[in-house]
């Protein structure tokens, strides 16, 4: 076999770098949506590679639900410092205080859906014309239909049935004032690819991804971390388990799995043997069959 071919990780990397450079070339004011989760950390790492030796030429934006893992915020601040990048924070708490959104009620209340308003407000306030996200098509069925360059109308809405066709590697980011785009450089990566690449590149990720002892509650088939935001039901019991998280989101809805994987090697091996999708531990996706599609239409990540 000829030596002039790329392995799958190099090809995915090359594709993502290409997309990031297209974003930079086609938009005036892009940002990376940074949640502190592994996918947005990966996108940031790829952006660092794409523009080296220059710094990442655009800011990172965090939509802060106020219900954070403290480890995530620490990690975010460290990476911003290391990159010398600018951080924009959109605060869900502020959106609530300003009366833009109302807190959900009941025991399964989360701030997940509230992020949509905060995100769209932050995009408008900062005149952002492209928000780069770590969404992947393998995550969820509505995401399987996403384009690399995904148009949002001036209400921030996604119209999945009327998307621009995307052929070869020619991306069309043309838009009118007030509209914006979402760009997804790691569309074609799977969870396994992400872990294999993080392992290969030895990318730093929050300690929450590694197995650790934590106080948790068994709810909706996964271990929800105990926190000041969690309202316990009578029958629920706080126990200490060795767990790790497969995805990181709002602390009230991100469930962990029991695990002993405390190194990147062990995590990759564990993910390879996993029999459930990573979003299976996210109660935001369990609400209905089209929960993700409905949120995405409104402007969700």
């Amino acid at each position, binding site marked *: 076999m000829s030596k002039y071919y790329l392995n799958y990780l190099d090809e995915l990397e090359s594709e993502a770098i290409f997309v990031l450079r297209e974003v930079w070339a086609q938009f005036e004011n892009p940002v990376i949506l940074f949640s502190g989760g592994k996918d947005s950390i990966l996108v940031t790492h790829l952006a660092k590679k794409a523009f*080296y030796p220059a*710094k990442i030429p655009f800011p990172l934006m965090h939509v802060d639900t106020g219900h954070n893992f403290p480890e995530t915020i620490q990690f975010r601040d460290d990476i911003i410092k290391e990159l010398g990048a600018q951080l924009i924070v959109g605060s869900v708490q502020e959106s609530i205080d300003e009366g833009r959104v109302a807190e959900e009620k009941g025991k399964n209340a989360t701030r997940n859906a509230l992020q949509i308003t905060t995100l769209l407000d932050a995009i408008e306030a900062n005149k952002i014309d492209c928000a780069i996200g770590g969404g992947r098509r393998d995550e969820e069925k509505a995401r399987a239909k996403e384009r690399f360059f995904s148009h949002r109308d001036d209400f921030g809405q996604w119209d*999945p049935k009327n998307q621009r066709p995307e*052929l070869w590697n*020619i991306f069309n980011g043309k838009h009118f004032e007030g509209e914006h785009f979402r760009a997804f450089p790691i569309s074609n990566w799977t969870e396994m690819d992400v872990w*294999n690449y993080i392992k290969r590149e030895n990318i730093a990720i929050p300690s929450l991804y590694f197995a650790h002892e934590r106080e948790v509650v068994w709810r909706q088939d996964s271990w929800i971390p105990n926190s000041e935001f969690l309202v316990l039901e009578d029958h629920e019991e706080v126990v200490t388990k060795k767990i790790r998280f497969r995805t990181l989101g709002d602390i009230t809805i991100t469930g962990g799995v029991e695990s002993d994987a405390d190194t990147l090697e062990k995590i990759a091996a564990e993910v390879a043997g996993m029999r459930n999708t990573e979003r299976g531990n996210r109660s935001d996706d369990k609400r209905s069959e089209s929960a993700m599609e409905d949120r995405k239409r409104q402007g969700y990540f």
Partner: protein
Amino acid sequence: MLDNNQLLRFTTAGSVDDGKSTLIGRLLYDSKSIFEDQLEAIENTSKKKGHEGVDLALFTDGLRDEREQGITIDVAYRYFTTPKRKFIIADTPGHIQYTRNMVTGASTANVATILIDARHGVIEQTKRHAFIASLLQIPHIIVCVNKMDLVDFSEDVFNKIVSEFEEVSSKMLVKDVRFIPMSALLGDNVVNKSENMPWYQGAPMLHTLETMHISSDINKVDARFPVQTVIRPQREGFIDYRGYAGRVASGILRKGDDVTVMPSGFTSKISSINLHDKELEEAYAPMSVSITLEDDIDISRGDMIVRSNNKPEPSQDIEVMLCWLNNSAAKPRAKYTIKHTSNDQKAMIKEVVYKYDINTLERNSDDTDLSMNDIAKVKIRTTKPLMIDAYRENRTTGSIILVDDATNETVAAGMIV
């Protein structure tokens, strides 16, 4: 998974009736790529709909409208990995009104899989799918003759379909065609070899996909480097650094190569090739790198760096096989933005030479209106020269899209003749 494993992209065109969804479901299920929570969801839906057993086709359901109508409307991408390769499936609808989605899915594919219902043989839809695969120059075609269980696993039926297809494909530009008799429903020759068809000596579908030679599909001869953006760090240690960032479209570029910058024609030598902080001796398609040159010349996005002894042809008048993708028809002599690699120019469709009848595949030079899903040969005039190659030589520098400036929508995709 091994470090040298490749990525293979394939497209599936077909409708629910051909068993396309069942085939994809079978491929994912038998290669153990379906997770338990996904399987559970499908089991629940199967029960709700009153199906016996698990309907694997449900796995490919996407948007709410598609679930309601039971069809694929858009291109959906699916992923699976085996110990030998990573696969991306571009799952596209098969009906004529979705030609544009098939074209989209086909544009990046290494392999096209075409489904034929063994009971019906080669039908109009088969011809259309083969035509699109040849138009988009997908290097390999796998013809899946499905539902063999409904024709008693008959070798004669299979052979008849093979010769029918060969008669159709002999008129098209297709290089590598393979035929596999299968039953996606029962799992015969999808992942596991069929016990019902001992007369078939070839490999099952998955094994074929895993072992197919694809590294020669990329053009390694004509070095083309469209510049995406210029990197100027303005920071200590890199004050004079000017890196030209881009993805090698084809060919191989090496340190020290004599290069020409198109369209200016300035010449220089490659002084370094970088990927992040690594310095490379050479770069080849489809690598994303940054290149520095020995001389300080004016280069910006839209320019193309090529080897001086092998240049593309700058041209303002191009002939293109165009697929119309938009609801609103082409306006005669209207201006569009043409996007070619990293270059944007204005362009006008000067003439529709002929249009294909997508059913009969005959050329028609009388009907020259272009509306959604039409495929036609057209002449385009651009305001400035584009550095083009023929699509059959180079899928990257041979492809264009047209954008309507009034709506900003992508209205057409074209392959340079």
